[in-house]
């Protein structure tokens, strides 16, 4: 059963140096506050997994938390580049960043395999692309019935998955709605999981389109209102498009980023 506590406690207990950590949320419900707490607690050598590394991964990379990034699209959606990510890849600053790169279809299926207790997933994907040349984790597989050639990707099973949701009840059952992304799969694929929620309520009233994660597949729940900002939680907040645009200037400049980082860490810049 999920333990309900503070975000700081949860990160301290669940996220360890060197872990494979997935923060998921496809544009919607991105667990940004949890990412900041990981920065604050100074985790190192993480293998960060995420289909769409955006601002929060730019921040984690810039803060030097990551050793490796496993992903399928790394940009500032609707704005442009992630400059901390580019700086790490192009100039090795603040540290070199190893990449394992997939397509969305491949990453989504890696989570599905992970959630299903299977070592791999099969898809029609990567065909003819250079991705299958540079990514070792993409292999051909033959259909035993038709002989057709398809593509296999290995399961991803993070040490910790972190997602944000609208609500949890006091038993730790989690409810989220709106675009559900790949969050259920990320939690089910992980060894440990943390869900930050907008609020903890007495009873989870049914909501159309809601996904419920039973308490017994969640390790910890932390109440963090606005924990997805600048992304949003349908029914609670709107996407802060200006914040995404403003990140571009901060991210472009190592010094301005350093000031931002000091703010997050709660120390004078």
């Amino acid at each position, binding site marked *: 059963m999920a333990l309900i506590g503070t975000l700081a406690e949860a990160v301290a207990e669940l996220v360890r140096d060197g872990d494979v950590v997935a923060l998921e949320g496809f544009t919607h419900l991105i667990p940004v506050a949890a990412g900041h707490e990981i920065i604050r607690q100074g985790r190192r050598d993480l293998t960060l997994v995420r289909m769409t590394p955006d601002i929060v991964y730019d921040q984690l990379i810039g803060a030097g938390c990551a050793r490796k990034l496993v992903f399928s699209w790394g940009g500032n959606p609707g704005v442009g580049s992630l400059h901390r990510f580019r700086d790490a890849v192009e100039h090795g600053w603040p540290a070199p960043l190893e990449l394992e790169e997939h397509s969305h*279809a491949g990453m989504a299926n890696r989570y599905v395999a992970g959630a299903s207790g299977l070592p791999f997933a099969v898809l029609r994907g990567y065909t003819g692309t250079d991705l299958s040349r540079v990514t070792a984790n993409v292999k051909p597989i033959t259909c035993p019935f038709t002989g057709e050639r398809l593509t296999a990707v290995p399961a991803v099973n993070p040490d910790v998955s972190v997602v944000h949701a609208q609500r949890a009840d006091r038993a730790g059952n989690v409810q989220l709605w709106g675009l559900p992304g790949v969050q259920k799969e990320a939690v089910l694929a992980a060894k440990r999981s943390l869900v930050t929620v907008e609020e903890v309520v007495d009873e989870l009233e049914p909501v159309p389109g809601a996904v419920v994660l039973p308490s017994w597949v969640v390790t910890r729940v932390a109440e963090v209102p606005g924990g997805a900002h600048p992304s949003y939680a349908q029914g609670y907040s709107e996407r802060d498009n200006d914040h995404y645009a403003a990140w571009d200037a901060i991210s472009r400049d190592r010094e301005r980023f350093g000031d931002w980082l000091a703010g997050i860490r709660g120390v004078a810049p």
Partner: protein
Amino acid sequence: MMSVAAARALSGGQRVFVGIGLPSTAANLARRTHAPDLVLVYESGALGAKPDRLPASIGDGVLAETADAVVSVPEVFNYWLQPGRIDVGFLGAAQLDRFGNINTTVIGGDYANPGVRLPGAGGAPEIAASCREVFVVVRQGVRSFVDRVDFVTSFGQGRGPGEREALGLPGRGPTLVVTDLGELRPDPVTRELVLTAVHPGVRVDRVRAATGWELVVSPDLVVNPVPTDEELAALRALTGASG
């Protein structure tokens, strides 16, 4: 003019896989003008989204709220894109080559030590493979329109005829490239992109100068009509409301 030209290429009840930016503008414009039955599918899981303003990202709340159905990301790729249910996939490109191959991964250097690191693949490789056809929307210039992309993120026609078929790719690949200057389509025989239309006021020389290979011009080259009042009004309504 790019969005208007791209919108015009859509018709009837086509199912369109839409990325954010120009593709989304074009698809929404078409749905608001000549193709009200267009079905917009966003990779964030919104099937049949009917936004009244342009979403700023592919995962905006307005998409889920107006969709016929909302599904998970694995489902949108496995149940909806992969089996060939989508008629038209819209893609952008950082680099595009004469055979319609797309690069959104790295430019210059090599993969491990790139000159410029781009965002990467996203849904594009499978969109390019599985949609019946693909429309590419991209600004034209010698740096983006190259003889051969530095990295094949999404497969077009490889190096020419027969390659898609040999790989067993179900869709036809890019059948239309809309730029700020005009339109290119693959030659049915050579599969090379040739200029088939220019926008009003654009001369062929200018398009040639913005192309990084020896551009072939179709003998049936047309000049696109100027945007109609209806198109301009719909475009203003969409972008005005979002701005």
